[in-house]
């Protein structure tokens, strides 16, 4: 954009500030569906407006220049926030692109700006929009990575079932990374709770191969070294047959058909007989 064009646009943007921002805010608000308050949105858009006006006042419209750094980081912050609030990529882009129509609506009658100026402004907003979309996508990616890590930790909860009994219901594929987390958490829980019994429930594990078996065996041995006993529960028929064919031996390890049998066993060994009635908290 030529310097004169930038300066002309900046002057009009300053002149019509209130009207343009209001029109802009009206257009964006329709896409918010309550995820942002009106006051928050107005503040964001007003800040953004000031920054882009300031850039044009410097006679430039290039986002790559050092004096556009504030504008760039404001756009990045906006797209990060939108990604976290669950806005889609187009909903996020609209926040920026809507300024074009708002500007035309609120300043279209201004004879200081020509058609060519509007076209230049439009290209400028395209740049801002693209930058927003790019940072949105990067933000989205990092959120996904973060979430899958959280999920990995969340999906291996160690629960205290009873005084002296902790349990880990294992769900999904037990790869090395997850097995490591399971083992660490379980051992930590044994320390924290001083429990003599740990139940590894594998009802949710689709296949037990030698790697999974080895992880289970190591966890059991580690627990034993800490003076606790492990009970494995939830070995389904097809898994049992596969384990036998593979030749894996669980040896001395106590195995039970389901979690409540395992809990019964632990409680009986602890001398806490609870009879037939299932205790609260035993069902997961």
């Amino acid at each position, binding site marked *: 954009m030529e310097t004169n064009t930038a300066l002309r646009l900046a002057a009009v943007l300053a002149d019509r500030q209130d009207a343009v921002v209001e029109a802009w805010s009206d257009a964006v608000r329709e896409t918010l569906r309550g995820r942002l308050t009106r006051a928050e949105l107005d503040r964001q858009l007003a800040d953004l407006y000031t920054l882009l006006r300031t850039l044009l006042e410097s006679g430039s419209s290039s986002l790559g220049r050092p004096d556009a750094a504030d504008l760039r980081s404001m756009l990045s912050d906006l797209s990060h926030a939108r990604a976290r609030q669950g806005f889609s990529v187009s909903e996020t882009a609209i926040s920026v692109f809507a300024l074009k129509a708002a500007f035309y609506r609120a300043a279209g009658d201004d004879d200081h700006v020509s058609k060519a100026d509007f076209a230049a402004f439009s290209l400028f907003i395209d740049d801002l929009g693209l930058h927003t979309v790019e940072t949105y996508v990067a933000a989205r990616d990092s959120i996904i990575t973060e979430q899958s890590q959280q999920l990995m930790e969340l999906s291996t909860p160690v629960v205290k079932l009873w005084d002296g009994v902790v349990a880990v219901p294992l769900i999904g*594929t037990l*790869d*090395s*990374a997850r097995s490591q987390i399971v083992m660490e958490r379980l051992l930590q829980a044994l320390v924290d709770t001083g429990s003599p019994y740990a139940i590894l429930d594998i009802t949710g594990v*689709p*296949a*037990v*191969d*030698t*790697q999974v*078996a*080895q992880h289970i065996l190591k966890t059991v041995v580690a627990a034993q070294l800490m003076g606790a006993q492990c009970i494995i529960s939830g070995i389904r*028929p*097809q*898994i049992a*047959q*596969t384990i036998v*064919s*593979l*030749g*894996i031996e669980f040896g001395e390890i106590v195995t039970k058909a389901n979690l409540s049998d395992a809990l019964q066993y632990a409680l009986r060994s602890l001398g806490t007989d609870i009879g037939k009635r299932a205790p609260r908290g035993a069902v997961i």
Partner: protein
Amino acid sequence: MINAEPTGETRRQGIGGDDDVVRVRQLVRAAAVATKLSLVDQTKLVTAASELARNTLIHGGGGYAEVIPVTNGRRNGILIVFVDDGPGIVDLDLAFTDGYTTAGGLGLGLSGARRLMDEFRVETTPGEGTTVSAVKWER
């Protein structure tokens, strides 16, 4: 030779990391379900595939797997093939011995996979690589 004619598309999966072992398992499970293997046979097949894929990764230094629906004229089944160009297996009998491992495993993967499958064949040349082919037939 394993007597097996393809009845459908060959699916191929590269094996270069732990994630790929999971992908092989998913591919094999999907094929087993499509061929209507019983739940027990599905589990056996998937478990064997998991072992062989991990051997390809760990001992063979990576390679690829192929999953092919097949028939022998009487029964349908799933053929799984694992190919690597790693060090090969010098002593096959030893490798098939329960408990034999060169990598701190349980040493049950190869022998266990053979017990889990209906057909099993290893072609290996020291210094050139290993190809393991195996079939699970429907019952």
